[in-house]
């Protein structure tokens, strides 16, 4: 019943045999030992498992590993390049956008996706875009500021 899949994760190709029912998040955490992607719920609600699949934010608990066959994934471990923090990571640190850090990888992956679609979101747009990501620690206040920081930095860099 094993299914062979090939998935590129953070630029590296992985080939593995998985059960048809294996969730993508379990594949990432258990098979690839990339534990930066978290599991916070069993109803696809919390967003702790958010990653990018072919450039778009998805909840990896809502996708089967076999459905991701042939796709390119980026997880939080792939966010920084050449030892340099991504502006989103920098923003979260500068603006105290994390406390326990559990929601943070998913938050950052959702937020980078937002900035790709909307490089200068308003506070309202940021808050709406985070509907699918729960944080119990920060009250979201500093997460909004972190994303604004990243937007400012990324816009500055491209301007």
């Amino acid at each position, binding site marked *: 019943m094993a299914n062979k899949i090939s998935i590129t994760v953070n630029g590296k190709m992985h080939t593995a045999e998985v059960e048809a*029912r294996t969730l993508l998040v379990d594949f990432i955490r258990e098979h690839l030992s990339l534990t*930066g992607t978290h599991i*916070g*719920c069993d109803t696809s609600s919390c967003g702790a498992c958010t990653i990018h699949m072919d450039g778009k934010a998805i909840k990896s608990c809502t996708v089967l590993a076999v459905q991701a066959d042939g796709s390119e994934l980026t997880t939080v471990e792939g*966010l920084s390049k050449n030892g340099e*923090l991504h502006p989103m990571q920098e923003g979260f640190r500068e603006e105290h956008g994390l406390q326990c850090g*559990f929601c943070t990888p998913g938050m950052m992956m959702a937020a980078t996706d937002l900035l790709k679609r909307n490089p200068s979101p308003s506070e309202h747009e940021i808050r709406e875009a985070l509907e699918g990501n729960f944080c119990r620690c920060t009250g*979201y206040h500093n997460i909004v500021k972190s994303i604004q920081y990243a937007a400012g930095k990324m816009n500055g860099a491209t301007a």
Partner: protein
Amino acid sequence: MTKYIGKSVKRLEDKRFITGQGKYTDDIKLNNMAYAYILRSPYANAKVNSIDTDAAKAMDGVAAVFTGADVPESIAGVPCGWQVNFKNGDTMKEPPHPLMVRTKVRHVGDAIAIVIADSKAIAKDASELINVDYDILDAVTDPKAAAQPGAPLVHEDVPNNICFDWEIGNPKDEVEAALASAAHVTELEFVNQRVVPNAIEPRSAIGEYDTAYDRYTLHTSTQNPHLTRLLLCAFVLGLPEHKVRVVGPDVGGGFGSKIFHYTEEALVVYFSKIVGRPIKWTAERSESFLTDAHGRDHVSHAKMGFDADGKMVALQAYTYANMGAYLSTFAPAVPTYLHGTLFQGLYTTPKINVDVTATFTHTNAVDAYRGAGRPEATYLIERLIDLAALEMNMDPAELRMKNFIPAFDGVEKEGYVTQVALQYDSGNYEPVLNRALEMIGYEDFRAKQAAQNNGKLLGIGFSTYIEACGIAPSAVVGALGARAGLFESAQVTVQPTGKVSVYTGSHSHGQGHETTFAQVVADKLGIDIGDIEIIHGDSDRVAFGMGTYGSRSLAVGGSAIVKSIDKVLEKGAKIAAHLLEASPDDLNYEDGKWTVKGTDKSVGFGDVSLTSYVPHNYPEGLEPGLDFSSFYDPTNFTYPFGAHVAIVEIDKETGKVELKRFIAVDDVGNVINPMIVDGQIHGGLAQGIGQALHEGTVYDETGQLINGTYMDYCMPRADDLPSFEIDRTVTPCPHNPLGVKGAGEAGCIGSTPAVVNAVIDALWKAGHKVKDIQMPMTSERVWNAMNAG
């Protein structure tokens, strides 16, 4: 001297979290590890006639299946850490909380069997093959209904389900007499509903037994590794404490729910030796809903009396507090010593009595949740005073000002002795409210409210709260029933090169101790913050600790660190004096060096630490090394306070409440890292506002938790909340060396009543004189309140 203290130093721990390298319990994989799934009762009250596990055991990949019958009788279950006595002196009813049920289930989620297998999927599949024969019985879920004659019993030997009754304050007849002669009495009956803490990291535990050393290791998502070890060893499994290591690695939020010692921790440890493999259990979210200790759940009736001038003359409160089916670790303390003792609030009320009845119900356990008892006390007092202002047609801010305890700093003017057993340390209450009024622009607000004309009702709600933090003086809590001391320990090890390792018994699960504590150490020692490491959460590395809860880390844990640093500096001065050929009294310590006063002769911290480990030229009779442990037991609680104000708009057509602004002015004493304190306030506000507007469990009459998932339980989301407007005043704590009071719970304590008060205010001003709307204030409830009669 203060290069770091008072500065918003960016967090040192963030790097690992933002790069996905945090290590939470479920991220840990051990060799040959097996996975556990726990089969749980789908019924709230039932007799268990039989459990058939044969088919599950026979499944491929299953290592073992155990039930309550496999746990020896000698293991009675997990203990309760706080004893409250009945009014008549009898000890509270304390039925055992077994690791897995033997003959009876008492709440949905009670553990029936543990399946241990090669993967969590196999364990879960196998659990479906377990056959349980139940006789389903009637259940009771409401704490007041549980105490009525004829209610279904949770434990056969606990009459009327009453765990204890308790009271504090002035004699009831005095309070009643004062109420009888009051010019105005405001009376309110309400429910402070049950909420679920919902740390985003589900609980997880890994038990491991090492045959070579005859030693156990428990990795667990806990706020409290050492206390967990103590309870596990001494009270549950009977293991020698030195043979058990408990590690609370990175922990994804706690909010109280991870203070307690849970049955699953004992199960994975106990069975890891029997199975001969490490065993990991991680809760699924729906399992967290059923088994993480819940918060609040009070049914109350209260009266507050005023004289003709609006001075409070008396307060009487009756509360039924839900304990759930079993007593969680600190459950009895929450409605009593963390609740009844707070009824003085910020006011001079001369007569107060608080009467509490704690009951068992067929529900999951209730214990400390962010604020723990203090939010419930604040909710009651602050709802009453705002309602009184409406009834008496007075301004709610003015009414509070009129009743505030006058300022006292705990030094020149001694601490305020309350009617309910506490002595406040220091307080200055008018400035927080004044500042909040200024931030709102209160002068114009009422005119704006009257003129509002956009189809929406505008309302403003106040809450001026006090809390007791820095938990706690051991002798005091011991006298009040705690079965533990609540001191904290810290070891400061200065390495030969002058780098510093600090081992603290506090535990960070988001609070940022690795930064805040390092700021304190860096400034006290005058060294670079990069030369310091803060180590916590591992009983093999940190000798002892009491963990983090009750906003105690800096006030108690930080004070222990300061004590050890003082010892380092005292010994260091002796070594420096020797090297400088001076007397220790003639030395000054500043910027990391000892200088002979009035000269430029000095020796640095690093030279002294090296000398202490290479003691060739060394003071006679002095021990080598620079390494000190301390225990700090506070002399009092700390008492942060603040003023919270909510401004809401209610849609007249739909009843939808929109929180337009939230202003919080808090006084948490001295502040080490303003950025982190602000973050703590923000998080607390979101949880307190969440209770007012969104959250709350729903149990049906059979005892099913019918909103036990994130699809059904409404967590506050980013677009439910505004950005917060916060500020603070600083009234230092007079009795700890840092002058700090604690900031973890403030936001959650003050905010809930402010939001409810704002909705009630909006309705009254529009002519709907409702006294209460049940939280969470959904559109439906608010619409019904607007359209009743």
